[in-house]
């Protein structure tokens, strides 16, 4: 089994990068691989549990919760979180952590593959 690290630098809704990360990550977890995800820059908005969008059955945040529930380790860049006014991630889904680039560097160190989206 492999260890796959994802980097996500774009937010929910505006572009589809979050969707590829989420679906690819879930597929990897189901195949038994280890998945880590570092959310950087606008990527940190994906962790919010407060997204409400009636047009969609599931909002992006639901997918990231599902990633965590299935064993993915998710860390969001704290500097990015606070810069973007997201108050230390107080409205993030439980299990989505706020950390720093050293966490990401550690993910990269243990990863067999690194994907940036």
């Amino acid at each position: 089994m492999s260890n796959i690290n994802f980097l996500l630098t774009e937010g929910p809704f505006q572009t589809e990068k979050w969707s590829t990360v989420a679906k690819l990550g879930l597929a990897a977890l189901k195949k038994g691989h280890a998945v880590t995800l570092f959310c950087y820059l606008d990527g940190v908005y994906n962790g919010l549990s407060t997204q409400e969008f009636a047009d969609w059955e599931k909002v992006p945040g639901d997918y990231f919760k599902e990633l965590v529930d299935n064993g993915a380790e998710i860390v969001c860049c704290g500097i990015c979180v606070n810069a973007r006014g997201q108050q230390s991630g107080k409205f993030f889904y439980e299990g989505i952590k706020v950390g720093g680039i050293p966490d990401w560097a550690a993910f990269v160190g243990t990863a067999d593959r690194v994907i940036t989206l």
Partner: protein
Amino acid sequence: MEKKILFMFLRAPFGAIYYTEGLRAVVGMMSGLDEHKVTCVYAGDGAYYALKGADKGESAGYVKTISDISETHYYVEKESMAERGIPEGDVDDAFEVISRDDLAKLITDNDVVFDF
């Protein structure tokens, strides 16, 4: 585990923030427990960052920190320069001009390849 990481800067500075947040990431990659070895290459619209007069203000601190940690190469790719009308004389001394073939070789020689 220490890895060799290639940071490719491909987006135009300064309209998007990747030019400086990418360098923040370089610092973080080098200063973690694994002490990853980083090489930076500027290609595509990223090549504009190598222009002599470009304001390194915001990213200068990272460049300084990076050089304090270890010798790090900054390459800019000749083909991207040519496509954008950037003559070699307009390139800042901090950057070494390489060919697309060299970029392909850098990609082969590094363990991890980021696009920023």
